[in-house]
C-alpha cells in the first residue's frame, strides 16, 4: 500500500515537471503582457476615438477574465491538478455571480431613490 502511495506521488511530481517548463512560463508571460497592452490600446487610443462606446467596459472585463484564467490555470497550476480540486475551488467562486446580480439590482434601486 505504501509503495502505491509513493508511486502516485512520483507520478504527480513527474506531471508537475511536464506542466511548466521555462519555455512555457515565458510564453504565458508574453501572453499576459500582450493582453495588458491591448487594454492600454483600448484605453488610450480607441476609447478616445469613440467616447462612451458601450462595448469598451465589457471588453475590459473579458480581457481581465482572460488574464485571470492564464494566471490561475498556468501560474497557479490549477490546470494540471486533479479535476476534483479544480472543481472544489472554481464552483464556490461562481457564487460571486449571485452577489454581482443582487448588488446590480440594489444599485438600480439607489438611482431610483436619488431621482425621487
Amino acid at each position, binding site marked *: 500500500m505504501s509503495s502505491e502511495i509513493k508511486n*502516485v506521488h512520483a507520478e504527480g511530481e513527474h506531471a508537475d515537471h511536464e506542466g511548466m517548463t521555462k519555455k512555457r512560463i515565458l510564453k504565458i508571460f508574453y501572453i499576459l503582457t500582450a493582453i495588458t497592452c491591448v487594454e492600454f490600446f483600448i*484605453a488610450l487610443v480607441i476609447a478616445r476615438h469613440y467616447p462612451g462606446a458601450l462595448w469598451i467596459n465589457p471588453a475590459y472585463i473579458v480581457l481581465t477574465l482572460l488574464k485571470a484564467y492564464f494566471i490561475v490555470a498556468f501560474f497557479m497550476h490549477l490546470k494540471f491538478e486533479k479535476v476534483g480540486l479544480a472543481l472544489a475551488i472554481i464552483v464556490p467562486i461562481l457564487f460571486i455571480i449571485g452577489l454581482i446580480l443582487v448588488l446590480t439590482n440594489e444599485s438600480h434601486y*439607489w438611482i431610483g431613490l436619488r431621482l425621487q
Partner: protein
Amino acid sequence: MSTAVTQHVDEVKSTPWSGGRSPFNVEYGKMMMWFFLLSDAFTFSSLLISYGAIRFSAAAWPSPSLVFQSVPGTSIEHGAPLVFVGIMTFILIASSVTMVLAVEAGHRNAKKEVITWMLFTILGGLMFLSCQALEWNHLHSEGFWWGHIPNAETMKEFFKAGTPLSQQALSSHQFANLFFTITGFHGFHVFSGVVINIIITINVLLGTYQKRGSYLMIEKVGLYWHFVDLVWVFVFTFFYLV
C-alpha cells in the same frame, strides 16, 4: 469464489476516494492554501462589487484618466494617464513570473536558482510597494484621503465640466474611501507576501528544504503570491480602466 470476492473488495479500496491517500493528490498544506485563497477571493470580490454598486449608482464619478494622469516621483504632472499604473502592473506580473521560475527550480532541487528567483520576486514586491507609496502620497498631496477630498478648485479638474459641486463632493468622498481601502487591502497582501517570501528564502538559505527533500513550501507561497497578482489584475481594471 472467496478469492474472487477478496479481489473485488481490494479493487474498490484502491479508488481515490476510498481513503488512505489524498483524493486530490496534493499535500495538506497546499490544499489549505487553496481554500484560504478561496476565502480571500470572496473578501476581495465583496469589496470590488460594493465599489461597483456605489459607482454605478453615483450621479457623477471622478474620471480615472484625469485622476491618474501623473507619474509620481517625476516632474510629469499631466497628460500621462495609465503610464505609472502600467509600470506597477508590469512589475507585479514580472515578479509573478520569477516566482514560477523559483517553483520550477524547486522541482529540480536547484537551491541556488531557487534563491536567485526568490530574491528577484522579493525585489519586485518591494518595487511595487514603493510605487504604491508614491501613488498614495501623490493623491494625498492633492487632498484625497480617507474621509478627505481636495478643495473645489482642484476637484473640478477630475470631473466633466458642469458637474454640480455637491455631486463632486459626494462622489469624491466615495472614491477616496473605496480607493484607499481596496488598494490598501491589496497592498497589505503584497506586504505580507514579501514578508513570507523573505522568511521562506531564509529557510532555503539555511537548507531547511534541502534536508526535507522537497521544495513544496515554495509552491505554497507561490500560490499566495500569484493570488496577489490576480487580485491586482481586477483592481487595475476596475479602478484605472473602467
